[in-house]
């Protein structure tokens, strides 16, 4: 039987990670790999207790780095499919089947979740930022997406082996899109629902400073390639 590995990069998610793992288990997932990116809280213990395979970064290296660690581990363990999933409960396990099906039946090499294909209520400030990123990704990589920074993805083994994540921090999300184009992978956006909460809105890709940092990293990546 083909095996799917769920990879979750987690940083200070002690309060939320166990619920996410429990949900995934309830949805029938066996191989859940959590990469604890040197959290200062009890993320490691929580994830372990909830029954995930937990890898620990001894230094904080960022979400991109943690995802790559999880992906490399899963490949070593013989994963046929790899799902990247957020640690904070933003993603719903109900969307798993729709996300995985096109990859499993060989239609595409990678699926990327999009919150804009279906009506997720996206707060306005975030919507402007995300749409701005969509435009910049189009400008940089010539690839038209509806959602730019969605952490919900399903990769075939082939796609996971080909995609190289060199951006350790937030810019990895755009980098993956760039890699899809460069490595000529077949992709598809699948509508997913994002559950926003007060807490999740305060962190991550949400603020303008983060956005400029990501843009800066993208420019430098282009210059160095």
């Amino acid at each position, binding site marked *: 039987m083909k095996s799917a590995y769920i990879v979750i990069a987690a940083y200070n998610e002690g309060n939320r990670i166990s619920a996410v793992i429990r949900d995934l288990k309830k949805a029938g997932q066996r191989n859940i790999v959590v*990469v604890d990116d040197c959290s200062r809280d009890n993320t490691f213990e929580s994830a372990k207790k909830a029954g995930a*395979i937990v*890898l*620990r*970064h*001894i*230094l904080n*290296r960022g979400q991109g*780095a943690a995802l*790559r*660690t999880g992906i*490399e*581990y899963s490949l*070593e363990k013989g994963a046929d499919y790899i799902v990247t999933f957020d640690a904070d409960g933003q993603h719903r396990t109900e969307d798993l089947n729709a996300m995985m099906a096109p990859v499993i039946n060989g239609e595409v090499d990678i699926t990327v979740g999009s919150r804009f294909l279906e009506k997720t209520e996206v707060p306005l400030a975030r919507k402007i930022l995300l749409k701005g990123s969509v435009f910049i990704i189009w400008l940089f990589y010539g690839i038209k997406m509806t959602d730019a920074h969605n952490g919900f993805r399903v990769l075939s083994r082939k796609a996971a082996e080909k995609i190289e994540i*060199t951006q*350790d921090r937030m810019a990895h999300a755009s980098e993956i899109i760039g890699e899809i184009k460069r490595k000529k992978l077949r992709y598809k956006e699948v509508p997913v629902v994002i559950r926003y909460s007060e807490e999740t809105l305060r962190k991550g890709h949400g603020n303008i400073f983060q956005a400029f940092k990501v843009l800066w990293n993208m420019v*430098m990546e282009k*210059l*160095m390639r």
Partner: protein
Amino acid sequence: MGLTLQIIITVFALFALSRAFLRKRDGKSSISEFIFWAVIWLAVGVVVWLPKVLETFTDLIGVERPIDALIYGSILGILYLIFRLYIKLHEIEQEHTKLVREIAIGKRK
């Protein structure tokens, strides 16, 4: 420029050139690095004794005063160095991440 100053600068340039040569001979620097420094110090020597050269050069690129050309050149040089440093830093960060990753995966096995 006074003769004393000219001599002091020339002696310094020769000293620096000899250091660059010795580093190259001992295999501590690459040939391109040696050429870079050799050109710089030889240029200093030429400009000290023949300042007119600098004027011809600045006329050629359309800058009024030689000092302006020097400042523009320095800014470009510094920008280039910053870029080089950025790349180096990026490489070191990546090695860092690789190490952290190997340790994380290694511990699980």
